[in-house]
């Protein structure tokens, strides 16, 4: 542990001693905030484009830029949530619930200041968890073998499908399974048989993740955005932005609780930032004395939800580093980028690349300082970003989508992949299929495929180890319950049983977001 702290400080010092690093983290975070602010540009899109564009850079710098982008975007989304009632990234939906009413009541600056404080503290709490848990988890991660990885892959798809499509979980699961199916295209790991390639050379290698991501989150997003009317113009600040320290400290319970909740939501595969915010919001509501204010302008609700989703960012990085399993869609991009740059995340990261975890921690720290600085000092100039005409921005984004898809492998084929998945993604969105499980499916597909078959090879065809190993058992029980809760009859049954035992429920169900 002590050694860890020393390494952490070393990491911070080496990172910040190089002026270029500070420069990179500053612009990357700033760009991330802008991307997050603009409705239609999500954190995932920003990360994907950045991952393809920083492809040529040295690993350290590229990852630094991606981390800055990630932290910045999740924070930037709170701006449009507060000002326009449009969450800039999906993760900030809970922030809009209280942020917008507060802003409309004339507290624009104060709301943004409080949200900034929440984001900074959330990131810092998540960062501490990352520094502390990642090495511990990496040590334990060797217990995860083929059997466990199979269940982790299933868990990611099932949980993400359930959470991103709460009204119709079936759609989430279908999207997830289609993602898994997409991952099947190309040579399989065990026999090198080209599946679904139909003799087409380029298909033998399968679809590269990054062009698929650029399509699903870039092109299809562009199609969706361009057909909707222009968003309303924003309000401006009149009151002070920099919050009083005592005021922020007054919410310490919310900050600490939401920070830890957010981090853990980030760690669970497939859950990610949005749930970090929602569960933190529910928690804040449960412990609040002024419950009636929630949804109408509650400071506690605002700070908790932003702390929760920002804390989920370092949280989602934990399984990326230790298990090579992404916690959320943006984390999936980060994982792909790590592989591209030759960093081998996984259980042995503390052996093969001991300093790297702390380097990432240091990067997160710098990014959180950057959002603190930009969030409080550049409030007004940043609002101008919301006035950038969409018709001018979108063609550039599309050009970058094309270049980005091409840049990874220098194949024109990847541009077609991007276009194809963009159109597919667009129609799936129109049919109300969520996109996050689709992407997790694409990432987790090969993991599911090879670990299931390898597990069976190792167990000589028996399914025993899949069911009886302790971690496996915990995982499949969670998956099973998630499935049951997604059906219509099981929760009804559960409710009836509870009513019979405990009497009628009180009306503070955690998820009522109205």
């Amino acid at each position, binding site marked *: 542990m002590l050694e860890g702290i020393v390494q952490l400080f070393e990491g911070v010092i080496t990172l910040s001693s190089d002026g270029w690093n500070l420069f990179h983290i500053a612009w990357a975070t700033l760009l991330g905030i802008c991307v997050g602010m603009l409705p239609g540009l999500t954190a995932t899109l920003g990360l994907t484009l950045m991952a393809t564009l920083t492809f040529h850079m040295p690993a350290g710098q590229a990852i630094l830029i991606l981390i800055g982008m990630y932290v910045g975007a999740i924070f930037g989304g709170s701006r449009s949530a507060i000002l326009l009632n449009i969450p800039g990234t999906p993760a900030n939906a809970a922030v809009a619930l209280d942020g917008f009413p507060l802003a409309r009541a004339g507290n624009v600056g104060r709301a943004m200041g409080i949200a900034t404080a929440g984001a900074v503290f959330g990131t810092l709490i998540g960062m501490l968890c990352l520094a502390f848990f990642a090495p511990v988890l990496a040590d334990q991660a060797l217990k995860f073998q083929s059997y466990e990885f199979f269940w982790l892959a299933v868990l990611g798809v099932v949980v993400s499908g359930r959470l991103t499509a709460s009204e119709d979980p079936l759609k989430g699961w279908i999207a997830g399974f289609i993602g898994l199916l997409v991952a099947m295209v190309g040579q399989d790991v065990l026999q090198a048989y080209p599946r679904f390639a139909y003799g087409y*050379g380029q298909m033998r290698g399968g679809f590269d993740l990054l062009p698929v991501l650029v399509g699903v989150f870039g092109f299809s997003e562009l199609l969706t955005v361009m057909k909707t009317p222009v968003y309303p113009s924003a309000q401006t600040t009149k009151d002070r932005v920099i919050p009083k320290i005592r005021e922020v400290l007054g919410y310490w319970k919310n900050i600490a609780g939401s920070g830890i909740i957010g981090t853990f939501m980030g760690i669970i595969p497939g859950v990610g930032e949005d749930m970090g915010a929602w569960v933190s919001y529910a928690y804040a509501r449960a412990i609040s004395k002024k419950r009636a204010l929630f949804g109408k302008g509650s400071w506690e609700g605002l700070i908790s939800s932003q702390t929760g989703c920002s804390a989920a960012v370092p949280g989602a990085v934990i399984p990326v580093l230790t298990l090579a399993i992404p916690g959320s869609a943006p984390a999936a991009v980060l994982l792909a980028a790590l592989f591209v740059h030759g960093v*081998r995340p996984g259980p042995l990261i503390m*052996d093969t690349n001991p300093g790297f975890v702390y380097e990432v921690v240091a990067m997160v720290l710098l990014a959180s300082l950057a959002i603190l600085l930009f969030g409080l000092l550049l409030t007004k100039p940043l609002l101008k970003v919301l006035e950038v005409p969409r018709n001018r921005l979108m063609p550039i984004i599309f050009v970058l989508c094309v270049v980005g898809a091409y840049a990874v492998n220098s*194949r024109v084929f990847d541009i077609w992949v991007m276009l194809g998945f963009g159109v597919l993604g667009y129609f799936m969105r129109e049919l109300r299929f969520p996109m996050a499980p689709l992407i997790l499916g694409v990432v987790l597909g*090969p993991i599911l495929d090879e670990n299931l078959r*390898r597990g069976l090879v190792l167990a000589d065809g028996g399914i025993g180890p899949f069911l009886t190993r302790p971690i496996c058992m915990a995982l499949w029980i969670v998956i099973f319950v998630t499935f049951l809760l997604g059906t219509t009859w099981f929760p009804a049954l559960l409710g009836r049983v509870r009513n019979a035992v405990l009497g009628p429920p009180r009306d503070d169900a955690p998820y009522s977001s109205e």
Partner: protein
Amino acid sequence: MKKAAFAIAFAATAALIVGCEAREPLDYSWEPDRPIEIIVPWAAGGATDQVIRLVASEIEDALRMSVVVVNTPGGTGSIGTAEALEADPDGYTWTSGSASALGYYPVLEMLDTSLDDWHLFLAVANVPLISVHPDSEYEDFGDFLADLEARPGQVSVATAGTASTGHKVIELICQATDNEYNHVSYDGGNPAVTSVVAGESSVTTQLASEQADMIRGGRLRPLAAFSSEPLEIEGHGEIPPITEWLPDVHMATDYFGIWTRHDVPDEVIETMQEVWDEYVVDSEIIRDYAMERGAVVTPYYGQEAHDRAWESVRTDAWILYDIGYAEISPDEVGIPRPE
């Protein structure tokens, strides 16, 4: 403020450019006037990619021209190689990989090419290692062979998948001793090695470069090197060669290097040979890499490179045929069985 920053940045860039220009002229017969491209037909960060980037930086120093490494993965390396085969023979497009691949492309009907289509410049050879978990009951390689004999088809061997180096190694061992084993495939050499560290499979036969970190960290115990000479790994010591137990196993070294079309102008080849002699043979970064990763520096070119590669092409193509992976016989594409 902005203008000042701009001016500084501009001045710095200008100084950099001028600084580069000011160096003395070179006297190579071929002086490239635009960046040279080396295609790595595998993903970034892999075994080939790591070595080729080092080689690229040496060429860059020698020719004072940028050398761009382009990763074009897919089709087991055949897509990137095909691109280099179709490029203009002007010396600006090179491809890379392990030389034995030039044998399996035709046999697996991936690409119609042969060793004679290329000028080879080899850099390092990677030696496979047979390794186990430190707590394994095998004391030495002999114990492993005995266990293979005792439990046919039960000993799990982790490799990077069908037709990977590790797979060919264990096939050769089993061919020589007439044994069976349980083949466990992973998505690449590193996961295969990790699985032995985690105790999921018992033995791995992957490249030393993929095992070096684990061996140094005491998380993996090497039993034998798949070569005829002992292998030295920095921070661990010497590993006995497999020939101590199986003197007849036919070896084929896996050479990594770069190659370009055989019909490029002679000046290009001359220049590259000079670069190899002056920069690659004594390259410190390549030697350090080799020591750290348990690889062997093999800076060969010309006929010598061709002959060495031919050896591994033949061995490789025939193992693939013998294990039923290749459907056409190497004979048909002009690769006779090694004696």
